[in-house]
């Protein structure tokens, strides 16, 4: 299924289907789908929403890439959630404690975050490699434990600072900030949105152009064949998990260095789980993930717009769920449809006993 139609048709179908589903739901509850749609579309032009969407998408994009790296290796890293949160806290604490020149400071914080993410991912990786502990179960546990460690760290007798009724880490000096791109009334684009783009490109190059990516994908597809081909599958588990954790460590950086400059008790959690959904939506492809991240961010912001016009905003969650489901269903349906079509074509072409040349399956 290499055709462009095969790639683009499913998401379109899926979004249409999800929209239909939500329309019905809205009608049942007596809301006006037309005004809901108008509000959702209209919000993009209003105020800073468009830029906010891109900003959020950059965060989601990093989370989804982190998840996707694991997927390439057939590792299900649910732990991105815990990894990014812990990395954010440690980076905020360290960043708030050191004084470094502008630029170096920010770079230092980013490196710390990546290292912490990788280090926390190393735990499930090592447990898997040495003790054969399933990564799903260990990362579920570690996500919860990360919450405890964070709570411990932001205690006001540890590294926390009381801010009224909130707690935060010490504010990072301005030398550690990453300035955004001001777009006037449209808001400010995170400077680290470009980091997300860079990581996406790096991910693509790594997976498709390097020996490392080859070994990773080979080990993900068939650990046995990869081993026979000289790939150390255990090492690949370790490395890909560290890499995944490293990228996970970056997830909170656009917000931390571009807007908040401190980690708050109320800083949102859940990006890791969003990342899973988006990585799946984007089929682990960097461009697909980018599309998924933007769509997700758009839907997220729609909640505000819908709430404003009195439409139940829960519809957004329903929409996100049904889009994920219908996108993948649509891919399956379209793939089967194309296969059928090809079958018919070949059947007509090979009237006689031509050599049976298979053309099924396609390059990824």
């Amino acid at each position: 299924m290499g055709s462009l139609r095969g790639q683009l048709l499913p998401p379109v179908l899926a979004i249409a289907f999800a929209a239909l589903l939500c329309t019905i739901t809205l009608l049942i509850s007596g809301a006006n789908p037309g005004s809901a749609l108008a509000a959702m579309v209209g919000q993009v032009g209003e105020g800073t929403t468009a830029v906010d969407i891109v900003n959020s998408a950059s965060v989601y994009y990093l989370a989804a890439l982190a998840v996707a790296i694991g997927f390439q290796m057939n590792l299900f890293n649910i732990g991105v959630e815990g990894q990014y949160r812990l990395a954010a806290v440690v980076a905020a604490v360290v960043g708030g404690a050191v004084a470094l020149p502008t630029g170096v400071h920010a770079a230092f914080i980013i490196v710390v975050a990546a290292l912490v993410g990788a280090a926390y991912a190393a735990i499930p990786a090592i447990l898997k490699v040495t003790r054969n502990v399933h990564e799903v179960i260990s990362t579920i546990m570690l996500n919860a434990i990360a919450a405890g460690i964070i709570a411990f760290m932001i205690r006001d007798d540890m590294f926390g600072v009381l801010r009224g009724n909130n707690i935060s880490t010490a504010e990072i000096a301005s030398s550690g900030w990453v300035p955004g791109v001001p777009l006037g009334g449209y808001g400010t684009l995170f400077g680290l949105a470009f980091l997300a783009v860079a990581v996406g490109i790096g991910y693509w190059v790594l997976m498709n152009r390097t020996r490392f990516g080859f070994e990773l994908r080979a080990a993900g597809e068939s650990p046995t064949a990869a081993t026979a081909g000289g790939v150390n599958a255990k090492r690949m588990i370790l490395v890909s998990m560290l890499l995944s954790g490293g990228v996970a460590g970056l997830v909170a950086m656009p917000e931390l260095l571009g807007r908040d400059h401190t980690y708050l008790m109320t800083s949102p959690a859940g990006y890791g789980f969003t990342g899973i959904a988006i990585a799946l939506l984007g089929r682990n492809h960097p461009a697909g993930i980018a599309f998924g991240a933007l769509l997700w961010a758009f839907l997220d912001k729609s909640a505000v717009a819908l709430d404003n016009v009195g439409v139940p905003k829960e519809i957004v969650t329903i929409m996100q769920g049904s889009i994920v489901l219908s996108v993948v269903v649509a891919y399956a349906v379209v793939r089967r449809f194309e296969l059928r079509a090809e079958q018919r074509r070949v059947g007509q072409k090979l009237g006689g006993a031509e050599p049976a040349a298979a053309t099924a399956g396609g390059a990824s």
Partner: protein
Amino acid sequence: MNLVTTSSAEPNPSAGPMTEPAPAPRRRVPGWLSAMLWVAIAITVVSTTSYFTGLPELTSSGTVQTALRLALPIMLAGLGGLWAERAGVINIGLEGMMIMGTWGAAWGGYQWGPWAGMLAAAVFGALGGLVHAVATITFNVNHIVSGVAINLLGAGVTKYLSTLIFAPISQNPRESPAVPKFDTFSVQPLTDWLRSLEDLQRVGISDVAGILRGLLINVSPLTLIAILLVPVSFFVLWRSPFGLRLRSCGENPVAAESLGVNVYRYKYLAVTASGALAGLGGAALVLQHGQPGYLEGQTGGRGFIGLAAMIFGNWRPGGLLGGAALFGYTDGLQLRRGEETVHALLYGAVLFLVALAIFQLIRRRWLPMVIAGASAGLLYALYWYTDELPEQLTPYAPHFLTLIVLAVAAQRLRPPAAIGATYRKGEGG
């Protein structure tokens, strides 16, 4: 004869054929016996700890009751996972199905009483399961994608339904009105006697009495049904033709198909049952004595923990019961008494590790022995030099413990062979 025997000095080697899996010649302990053994070990460790740390709380009937109540939803979700995954379908959507279950339980319970609530919970969970089945079985969608989507859908749909149906009654879109609960029962004369034993505070006897009493008082029909579902699941899955067919779909669906098994049907049944079980897990958060009803977000990741318990239990009902019990017990301890008891658990862990080290010593497996021994020493030092653990970390004691047990026990987990694989009729082989 042109054959030159090169190793004539060797007598005929007596070893068996060299196929790769290790055919260990030792006899296997039957399942029920090893389960009893584990239970005995656990009770011994806990009551010894209770004795040495002076905390009767560790084995009090109250703790055990709490553990049971906390373990139930996890266990039911785990059973749900078991049914689906034994048929080859990964079910990460348990959480969403459980949420559907809580809503269904509250709705059915509010309208027609607890039994209807339980039924509604199962039906709502099963609906979630059905969606998962359609996506994964009919459309061959990646199982994890579908599961993630179901978690989102479960949360969204229940929020939406609550706004629609509960809000006008409870004035609160996030919760249901009060729901009638199941009555509870106690095994009367016996529990009174156990109570007197427990109150004696004698080592061993009182511990066992406390544990037994905790299991025998305030039992609701839902608790009973849930516990019974464990052996029922075992017998259905392992001792009935239906179960054999169902499991064969998770091991090698093409082989099953080649023997005339309708793989689709069994997978559908399994995943729907899985949803129903997860839904019951939701009911266990709504219909038990003292529970307020549906509340948005009340499942709090128990579906995931259930999945973890199932993996912990090596895709077996007994094992997952153990996983859920371990989790419920530790969580119960930390909730009831917090820092002190969790600190005492350190002591229990030391005892356990020492036992493990001795066991490895007998089996002459040096590395595991050294690791177990060293960890025991480390934990003991930690126990000795601290009075309590940071309170921020105690709520996560169950998670720590699960992780540590897994890492130490290093069991050889054996998931069903065809788990997560796509299957399409007539295209296999």
